């Protein structure tokens, strides 16, 4: 069984960083959403791995909540991306800049 827990931490940190990199570099709103999913699932890896490490189910159950909320968040996000496309004829997040950042 013995994959030590720090390897899970390394894996999840790597996935989290890939997600952050995606958010910082991508301009397409859908790729942005995918990067956010990566970050959320990095947290799920931690939760499940340390649920096993600590020997309780709290983390596993919470990871189910995280997945459900990630789905809900994407549902709202896709809706916003849709109205973005209708207004700006593009889903490039840098194009929507009528107000300055």
């Amino acid at each position: 069984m013995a994959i030590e827990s720090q390897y899970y931490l390394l894996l999840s940190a790597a996935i989290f960083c890939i997600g952050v990199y995606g958010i910082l570099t991508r301009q397409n709103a859908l790729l942005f959403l995918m990067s956010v999913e990566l970050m959320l699932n990095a947290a799920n890896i931690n939760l499940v791995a340390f649920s096993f490490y600590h020997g309780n189910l709290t983390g596993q159950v919470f990871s189910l909540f995280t997945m459900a909320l990630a789905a809900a968040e994407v549902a709202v996000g896709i809706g916003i991306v849709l109205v973005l496309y209708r207004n700006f004829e593009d889903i490039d997040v840098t194009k929507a800049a009528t107000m300055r950042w």
Partner: protein
Amino acid sequence: MVVDIAGYRVADWVAMTPALVLGLTAMVLFIVDSIEPRPGSSSNAVLAGISTVGALGAFLLAGTFLVLGVGQPRGTGAVDLFNGQLVVDGMSLFFVVIVGSVTALVMLASYDYLDGESYQAEYYGLVIMAATGMAVMSSANSLATVFVALELSSLPSYALVAFVKENRGSVEAGLKYFLVGALSSSVLVYGISLVYAASGSLQLNAVAEALSGSVELVGVLGIGIIMVLLGVAFKTASVPFHFWAPEAYEGAPAPVSAFLSSASKAAGFVVAFRVFLTAFPEVGGLGGGEPVVDWVTAVTVLAVVTMTVGNFAAANQEKVKRMLAYSSVGHAGYVLIGLAALNTPDRGLVLGASMMHLLVYGFMNTGAFLFIALTDYWGVGRTFQDFNGLSEQAPLACAAMTVFLFSLAGLPIGGGFISKLYLLLGTVNAGAWLLAASLIVNSALSLFYYSRVVKAMWIEDSAGEFEIDSYPSSLYAAVVIAAFVTFALLPAFGLLSPSAFDAASVLFG
């Protein structure tokens, strides 16, 4: 399982009724909307009435519970629900009072603002849903319920900001709010997973217990705590996740800006207070030992930077709504003092001062944004110059706005003066001179840009471009009520502050 409320022995979930009332109101709104004869034919008055009554009901229930001593040491003591996943105590009731009153004001004002718009039922339903999430946030006593409740308040808010679908500004604001929100909620949940890795539980008291001995994964815990702090900073519009605030508040419909900048901020702060003071007091060095993870210093830095960034940016704005948005960032910095100036035996005082500031802020800031809603309704422009001479045509509303702005600045015309005074007292007690100095400097600076609006309204001559032909009664009523309460909190501050100070001291055991 049974608690004693004012002599009646009732089930313990009764203590959660303020949040339940809000949730039920949202359901009723959906039912009313779904049984309407034709799509979109529900009466605006009915929908606004139901939501105002629901929000007012939650506000009154929470207020009554607070008076009856529910959840407080003099009454039932803190009521734990679902094995401590939720807790009802003085602080949670106090914040439901804030959320309920802000929601009621915003719903009242929305009746006129939404007149003739489509998707009214969806609007009211989403606001009440978000308010439900905020009410649950104030009771959340586990990192799991914190996250779920926070998302319940965030997801409707994203949709609300982008509510005017054909308006580019509104959609852009919604997009930016959503992008920053999604990023910060994933940062928050990653932080939660790291805290779980180090402690093995999510329930806040159990986390504190697991961390009170020697901690194995100190580095992991430290990163986790900082990430949780950053995730909460989004909700409270504090640095570093503050940059959505000016965009979202400027682009959103003005009542939604009022709702987000007051209620949502308060809910974010109650989560910050509870998580950090229940789960991480020992690691932060509040138990008397050496801090393992010195989050108090981190919060101090955030508080000073947030105050300064918010106020200096506000001083450079051309549009009044955007100025108010940055000033709301600045106020988040003031409130953060409650988590930063803790190096004193009398910690309940400074935290209670933060809670009172949020209460007063709930009225004065909501009122200021609702005044902007009023000017939107009249079609007055958005820059400072557009407000020139407004007092000739709408003296009552302008007088109310003057009360809000001077109270926000901390002049003795509203409750904002006393709450800032208590915050200052708290920093002096703790010997936090940096915080005290930045509080004073920033308040003085804020007076400059708030008076620009007052000067435009009362002293400058109007360009004579517009003529106000209608006075929307419910919007007016909301603005005047908010102004009255802001002013009344100056003499009545002492009536409410003991419950805040008591609720705050309970958290320090």
